[in-house]
């Protein structure tokens, strides 16, 4: 027995300490209801009955609190938890907010002349009329403005019968400076810098939490072909990092869109003959591993069964709930009933969902595991055809009352919704501290102050009008991280003769997609090298374009006519055209864009690479260090043949594609080599300043023919043997040759030329990652018969042309 004494002592100590730990007073803040004291501890009397109810008792088990609260709720109030509207039913929010937007009670109202279009609903109306407790808030404003709006809405929620707090969600991941700056989606993948990403994500989460946003409808880089590219291993790594960092720092993630909208093809369109569902799911599994508490569906698109939208497909929803074990909140995207017209299709069970009424549609989705239905607006009645993209809670209320919907599913969904709020501590204190939000998001020179009334809000100065203004007021650390990301996410594609970085004093002519943008660049380039007004005066001409269109084409033509070295930066558009890469001397792909996701960006702000960072990169103060995350096709036909659920197979033959498929299947991380296909630019490609390729050509393989030759036998006599011999070419017909192209240096591009009798008879642009290789396959064409000496790099062959 003696040996159990230490354990008994430990248990006794634990029992003694537990009540003390459990009774640790959280911050309780009330603005409408009373705070009551029990056992010397503070609680919020949310239902105003002067007593401490179980759901008000933060010491109680969360399951008990949920059960108590649900027992006090009407069916309408419970159903109200299952809908998430845009704040006040406005897609973009109103900025600055108005009395109508927040408080108006006689809804729908007629908006004032200066108010953007809305259906005339207010926040108050949704909270009180529909009992909504989830708003999608893609609204604009400074940190203190956001805190004011969110706190006012929380106050309205507290003022209701049971005081259930609001959950604020946002399509934006970084919106404490709402409409000024957001997360640059593509940059995170392209930068391939987990350390920098983690620092930024931590700041995003802390900032969002500080202004009262609880959930971001992010990430969606877990989808193949989206911001993290197509390599499942890389997608999983970056997704796990993002989900974990945001959640650990106070911003819940809603990973979307189950089972995949995809970057360039949705799940339904992406599936190749190989049906690489496991490959596709690597990113999703990473999000679940990292503990994503919410998931959004891909409304309107099919899932595993490929017959009805995912919310109606038991197989797809069950895979998430049962196979993958997700027990968090599932919210639909904003058109679960349909977009344009009602959802269509026949389920595996033979149900034609196009013929179902609202009750049946909602009932089916709830049964399949949906908890919240997203929408811009909520309307009364059950006539879902009246406006298919609205939501209709009456369908669920009446459906339950008349036995068309099993209330169990409603309670199950409401339980998940309430659990999230309880775990977040919103019942105790849903309010944000504007002082803290300002300290966190702004620097010491910022003059913004906490706002206490709509009058103060309306009167607040709004004098941040440019990127420079914004840079001057934001937290310096956040600014520095953002600028680092701008350079880290730029990919140097070509840099002939080490044209970049430019030397100080280089005379520069700069053009861009718009004159304003060019002037903005010039303002900062001029710090390092004088800006000249004509190409003829310049040492180098620089063009920044958002598309390879007539504007870029004329720029390149003019620069070539002027005989000047050309630096081209492709701004948020990929280098997809071989002729462009060949035409310029240096080429950079800028993936950075911090434009506000959903809703409206505030006017006057440049959201792509800022001009001072642009100038820094050109002159080597900063270095572009990103990589291509998704191999770039040579043409549309090649892309159409690519399997969207497999990586690394652009331009691959069927044989190679199957080798890639087998490699992926046998790889723990579902990854594949990046250099087996024949893309224009390979996955992971990205140059560095001062580095260049060191190319070597090897093993030229010419076409063969099998001929039969009589061979003398060892013991006399003769045998007929099949022998492979070099095939002859034919005039005007392709003569396919293959060889290895090694790159013993840094990543670089080379235009491989096949030369015959001093004439280029074929050429092909090859981008080869550093210390790697590619197989080059070229079709040679001859215009005359005879013997032709052909040179490709250091390879030589004599080819007979018939």
């Amino acid at each position, binding site marked *: 027995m003696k040996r159990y004494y230490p354990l008994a002592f430990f248990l006794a100590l634990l029992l003694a300490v537990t009540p003390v730990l459990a009774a640790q007073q959280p911050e309780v803040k009330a603005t409408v209801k009373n705070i009551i004291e029990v056992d010397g501890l503070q609680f919020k009397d949310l239902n105003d009955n002067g007593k401490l109810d179980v759901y008000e008792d933060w010491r109680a088990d969360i399951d008990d609190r949920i059960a108590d609260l649900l027992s006090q709720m009407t069916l309408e109030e419970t159903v109200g938890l299952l809908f998430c509207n845009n704040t006040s039913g406005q897609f973009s929010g109103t900025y600055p907010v108005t009395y109508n937007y927040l408080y108006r009670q006689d809804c729908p109202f007629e908006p004032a002349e200066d108010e953007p279009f809305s259906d005339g609903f207010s926040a108050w109306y949704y909270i009180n009329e529909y009992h909504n407790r989830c708003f999608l808030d893609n609204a604009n404003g400074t940190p203190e403005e956001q805190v004011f709006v969110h706190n006012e809405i929380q106050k309205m929620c507290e003022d209701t019968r049971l005081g259930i707090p609001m959950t604020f969600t946002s399509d934006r991941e970084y919106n404490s400076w709402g409409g000024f700056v957001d997360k640059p989606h593509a940059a995170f993948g392209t930068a391939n810098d987990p350390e920098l990403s983690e620092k930024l994500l931590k700041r995003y989460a802390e900032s969002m939490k500080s202004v009262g946003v609880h959930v971001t409808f992010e990430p969606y880089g877990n989808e193949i072909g989206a911001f993290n590219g197509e390599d499942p291993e890389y997608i999983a790594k970056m997704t796990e990092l993002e989900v974990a960092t945001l959640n650990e720092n106070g911003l819940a993630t809603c990973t979307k869109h189950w089972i995949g909208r995809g970057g360039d093809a949705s799940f339904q369109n992406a599936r190749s003959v190989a049906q690489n569902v496991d490959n596709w799911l690597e990113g999703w599994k990473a999000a679940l591993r990292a503990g994503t508490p919410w998931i959004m569906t891909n409304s309107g698109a099919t899932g595993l069964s490929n017959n009805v939208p995912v919310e109606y497909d038991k197989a797809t929803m069950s895979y998430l709930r049962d196979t993958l074990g997700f027990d968090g909140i599932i919210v639909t995207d904003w058109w679960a009933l349909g977009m344009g*017209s009602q959802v269509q299709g026949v389920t595996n069970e033979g149900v034609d969902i196009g013929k179902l009424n609202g009750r049946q549609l909602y009932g089916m989705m709830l049964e399949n595991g949906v908890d919240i239905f997203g929408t811009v607006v909520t309307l009364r009645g059950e006539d879902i055809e009246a406006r298919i993209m609205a939501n209709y809670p009456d369908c669920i209320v009446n459906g339950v009352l008349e036995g068309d919907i099993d209330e169990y599913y409603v309670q199950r969904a409401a339980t998940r919704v309430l659990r999230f709020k309880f775990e977040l501590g919103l019942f105790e204190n849903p309010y944000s501290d504007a002082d803290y939000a300002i300290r966190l998001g702004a620097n010491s020179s910022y003059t913004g102050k906490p706002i206490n009334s709509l009058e103060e809000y309306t009167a607040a100065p709004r004098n941040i009008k440019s990127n420079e203004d914004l840079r001057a007021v934001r937290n310096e650390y956040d600014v520095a991280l953002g600028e680092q990301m701008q350079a880290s996410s730029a990919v140097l594609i070509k840099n002939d003769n080490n044209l970049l970085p430019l030397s100080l004093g280089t005379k520069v002519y700069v053009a861009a997609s718009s004159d304003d943008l060019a002037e903005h660049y010039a303002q900062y380039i001029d710090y390092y090298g004088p800006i000249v007004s004509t190409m003829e005066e310049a040492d180098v001409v620089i063009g920044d374009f958002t598309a390879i269109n007539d504007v870029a084409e004329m720029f390149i033509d003019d620069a070539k006519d002027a005989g000047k070295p050309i630096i081209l930066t492709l701004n948020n558009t990929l280098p997809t055209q071989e002729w462009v890469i060949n035409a310029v001397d240096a080429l950079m792909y800028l993936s950075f864009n911090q*434009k506000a996701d*959903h809703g409206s960006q505030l006017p006057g702000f440049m959201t792509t690479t800022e001009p001072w960072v642009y100038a820094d990169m050109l002159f080597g103060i900063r270095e572009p260090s990103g990589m291509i995350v998704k191999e770039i096709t040579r043409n549309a036909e090649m892309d159409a043949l690519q399997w969207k659920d497999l990586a690394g197979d652009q331009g691959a033959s069927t044989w190679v594609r199957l080798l890639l498929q087998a490699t992926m299947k046998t790889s723990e991380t579902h990854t594949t080599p990046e250099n087996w296909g024949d893309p224009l630019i390979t996955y992971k490609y990205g140059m560095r300043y001062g580095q260049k390729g060191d190319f070597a050509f090897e093993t030229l393989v010419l076409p063969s023919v099998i001929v039969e030759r009589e061979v003398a036998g060892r013991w006399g006599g003769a045998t007929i043997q099949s022998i492979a011999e070099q095939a002859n070419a034919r005039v005007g017909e392709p003569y396919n040759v293959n060889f290895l192209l090694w790159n013993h240096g840094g990543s670089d591009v080379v235009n491989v030329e096949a030369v015959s009798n001093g004439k280029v008879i074929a050429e092909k642009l090859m981008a080869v990652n550093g210390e790697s290789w590619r197989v080059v396959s070229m079709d040679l064409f001859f215009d005359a018969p005879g013997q032709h000496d052909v040179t490709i790099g250091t390879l030589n062959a004599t080819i007979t042309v018939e």
Partner: protein
Amino acid sequence: MLFAIPKPKKDVTEMKRLKTCFLLVLALSLLMPGAILAETPEATAYKTDTPIVIDGDLSEWVLDSPIVIDDISQVIRDANAWNGPMDSSCTVYVMWDEDNLYLAADVNEDTPFGAIEMLPLDGQDNFKLYISTDPSADPDRTEYGAHDFLVFFVVDNQYWDTAFDRSMVPKENRERFISKGMDGGESVLAGHERAVKLTATGFIYEAVIPWVNFSNANIPVYTPQTGDRIKFNFAITDISYPCPGTEFVPQLVWTGGLGINTNPSSWGTLIFQ
């Protein structure tokens, strides 16, 4: 007032029937090329002796040659998501003087001002003006000439971006007049003014565009003459839900199909009077 009116409830069966008919007619048209090459419509642009005041009030306009865009046969994109004339349609009027082109549109729209910066210009609520400034150009030309222009007017209650798309003009025809403002966020028309007035079913749009906008050092300013006939077309685009995930953005056009973006022969004709 727009918001107090109940949303018109569409007759789904009727819509489906109309769409079926439309597809049938389309299929028959494809079988009979002659049908597609039918005569293109004409409209009259009336001259104004005094500059029109741009205030959303059309009382000083001559309205007897409307360009009506309200039929399912005029939907050239995402017809399955077009819910009838109250969803999106318009009647367009054109006037002119030596210095200016005047445009007015009486628009029916149940979700006006659907612009979102994340989408390309052609995916946002917009008007597209297709206009030639060369009355002498072959009306049956099948590619854009130097004097053929496509102008975007983004219809947003805040920004009202404008842009020229010249990407479809063959390089040899561009005369160094290239695309402008296609990234959005710009107003590329000098002297352009517009005004909007909400109505019970949408809004009235009124604008002036100086002719000088359709010129550069190589393309002279067009000064219309009474009797001039130029190729002309007009489109209206309606995004009902301005979200990046929106799949369907219907577009209606006065005349022609998607080919109007690369081929002016199927545009209508505007007669200056």
